[in-house]
């Protein structure tokens, strides 16, 4: 039974069977592969959205939300955006290994030495220097800036491609909204899916930033806030926000080990309590710490619409399996004379079962091949319909494997009952 000759014999029987009813097998392959393809495309989207962007230390990176709004009607409780002095209180703590305090901005950039006046719209991360090591930002050239203040920037690969066509641009000077800043580092292509460090305001699937600038410098230059901000005081520019109740900074810390979470928590809680005792805010002390995966979960970065559609495609796959199953049943029924004959001349139940299994595995492989093509197609189609997902529509190798597995499983599952039935056809009845 296990001999190669038996296997090839089974294979050739399967091929014969396919040839005898090509339309029927075509329909089976078509329906199963559409089902698997649609589901696989969806799982690819869900996979990108639900994956851990920084698995090596996602449990040690902590996002901090605080509750220090000066009035009794805060926009949120607690708030994921912090005001300058609260954020600085976090940055100066020596409990965590390092911290990053930042906000999102945007400027127009050009190479000062360029003859072209074209300026490129660039997303800016105005941040403390801890950001680079905290996020494991990969450097191609140069290194991070070292201080909170300085006319220095690190740029991303995409901008470096656009302005310097990918060459080492360390030491070059950029004109950013009329100010001159020197490049000290250039990053490699850097993909974070999701963009965990800024998972709010619908930015979770944005690309990483183009320009990373020292936080204090960006504030001094008045680079405007491009993400959410809430303020209890009036201000006319970011440069005025340091001593006001303007909330716009996000803070992350990296802990040496996860046991420090409680130390960090009590550090923040006692700070909040101090503020409350001083009458600076009437709210209950409520500082929330989330590690990367907790934070992505809290912020629901997995698109709920895609989840809903995934449920629908699971049901669809079920329908496809049912369909294949009833098609196969009719196929086996039509071939029952042959089955009976083979049983009569000595094929055991096991033989018949193995033969049927070979056929469905082969069917599964064909289905898998078609399904992978279709899932790529459906992925493209999904992006057409849901353009917001463009950055995450990628078929990773593990999904290709999953698609193949799904195809095999569905193909075998749909053959199970028909096989069982076929093997119960009595020999005598068929040979009458």
């Amino acid at each position, binding site marked *: 039974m296990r001999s190669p000759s038996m296997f090839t014999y089974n294979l050739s029987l399967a091929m014969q069977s396919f040839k005898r009813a090509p339309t029927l097998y075509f329909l089976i392959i078509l329906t199963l592969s559409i089902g698997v393809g649609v589901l696989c495309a969806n799982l690819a989207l869900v996979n990108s959205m639900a994956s851990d962007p920084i698995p090596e230390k996602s449990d040690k990176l902590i996002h901090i939300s605080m509750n220090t709004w000066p009035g009794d009607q805060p926009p949120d409780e607690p708030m994921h955006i912090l005001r300058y002095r609260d954020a600085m209180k976090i940055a100066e703590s020596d409990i965590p290994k390092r911290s990053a305090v930042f906000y999102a901005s945007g400027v127009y950039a050009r190479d000062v030495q360029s003859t072209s006046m074209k300026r490129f719209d660039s997303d800016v991360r105005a941040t403390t220097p801890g950001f680079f090591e905290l996020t494991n930002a990969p450097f191609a050239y140069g290194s991070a800036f070292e201080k909170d203040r300085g006319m220095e920037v690190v740029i991303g690969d995409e901008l470096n491609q656009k302005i310097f066509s990918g060459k080492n641009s360390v030491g070059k000077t950029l004109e950013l909204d009329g100010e001159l800043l020197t490049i000290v580092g250039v990053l490699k292509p850097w993909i974070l899916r999701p963009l965990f460090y800024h998972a709010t305001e619908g930015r979770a699937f944005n690309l990483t930033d183009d320009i990373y600038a020292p936080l204090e410098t960006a504030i001094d230059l008045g680079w405007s806030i491009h993400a959410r901000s809430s303020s209890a005081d009036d201000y006319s520019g970011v440069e005025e926000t340091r001593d006001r109740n303007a909330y716009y900074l996000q803070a992350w810390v990296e802990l040496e080990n996860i046991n420090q979470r409680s130390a960090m928590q009590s550090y923040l809680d006692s700070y909040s309590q101090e503020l409350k005792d001083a009458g600076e805010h009437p709210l209950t002390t409520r500082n929330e710490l989330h590690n990367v995966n907790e934070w992505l979960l809290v912020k629901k970065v997995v698109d709920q619409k895609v989840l*809903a559609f995934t449920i629908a495609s699971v049901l669809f796959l079920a329908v496809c399996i049912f*369909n294949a199953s009833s098609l196969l049943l009719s196929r086996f029924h039509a071939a029952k004379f042959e089955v009976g004959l083979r049983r009569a001349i000595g094929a055991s139940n096991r033989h018949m079962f193995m033969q049927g299994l070979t056929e469905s595995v082969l069917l599964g492989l064909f289905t898998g091949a078609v399904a992978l093509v279709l899932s790529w197609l459906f992925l493209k189609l999904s992006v057409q*319909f849901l353009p917001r997902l463009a950055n995450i529509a990628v078929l990773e190798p593990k999904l290709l494997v999953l698609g193949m597995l799904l195809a095999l499983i569905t193909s075998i599952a749909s053959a199970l009952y028909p096989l069982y039935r076929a093997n119960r056809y009595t020999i005598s009845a068929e040979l009458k």
Partner: protein
Amino acid sequence: MNIKALLKSLLLRKFTTGLLILQLAITLGLLINSAILAIDTNNKLAEKTGLDAENILIVSLHPTSGDYRDLDYYRSIVSEDLQQIKKIPGVESVSLINQLPINRRGMLGNVYDLDDPELVRKDKYLQDVKIFLTNEELGNTLALALLEGRFLTKDDELDFGSDKNGNVLITESLKKALYGDGSALGQETNNGRVVGVVKDIMLNPTIPADKQYGVFGNRVMEFIFTGRFYLLKVNQGKVEAVRNKVSDTILAVQGERDIFRVYTMAEHMQRFYRHDKGLAQLFLMLCGLMIFVTAISSYAYSQFHISRQKKYIGIRRALGARKKDILLYVLTENWLVYTIGCVLGLVMALGFNILLSQYISLSKPDMMLFLLASAVIFVAGTLATLIPAIKTSNIPPVIATRTV
């Protein structure tokens, strides 16, 4: 037709019949919910905005040069822009604004009457009122309907850096929230003195229609760096002509600007719902595929059935059943399956609706939709089984004489 006999015959093929019924039920469940999604989206898109959306052009832009950090320079360029755009044939009026209507977030602030700051606690929507910084042309550009008082004028523009709030226009629903049915004119809010009340326009489609709170102040020149959009009221039929010209006109005034997009308010609304629409389209596509697969199943089901029943049908024919009777018999049998499938499908639709509601918002299924979807299933199923059914009715009586 003897239903009992039919049911008995169906029970002989429990497995295939069961599978088909399940398929039909799932298909119906999905079909109904997809239709709901599509209808919901269409309803949202058809909601009244209170705007002449087709004839309002939006230009979104941002200066690219550092020179614009000099606000006086910025203002002078913008003033020139406004003049030049107004000269484009077909442009009725043009204004500058910090944010667009039909948007979820944007610049929000709390609004209360200075005499009654506690009101904000009672109505949470008063905490997130849309604050529009614009100029005196806005009333014309958006063709706002004045209910009382007056529009903003050039005189409402304050000296730059003034710490006064100035005069404001508010929407009708905000007026109702703050002052009930009384007049709002001359009332002092934390955002300024009310000089006019306009009919509601759709500011944020995700909140109730009677909570479209908005405040308009003539302050965009003061905070010129917030002026991200030019709004153009264009004469009927001139939209495309103006659309083609406006970017060049702006860049001719001063070239160091990045013009992101020129689009109508109607397109802006479409964009707002693009994701919803995309999802509905995806669902409908899946439905199409599902009906296709189910039709194949129905076809295979009858085909399979015939191959097994050939002899009995032959006997029936021999006993005097006409072709018509056999056709009707096969079809009735299928219809019975569809009926069971659809009834089960109703349950499936409700269950599926509840399941989907965990993730997205959609309306409840109604009877009309169920009947319509059932009709689709019946038609598709009948078409798919027609060929096998006709084939069956062509089985000659002579089959009965053959013994197995």
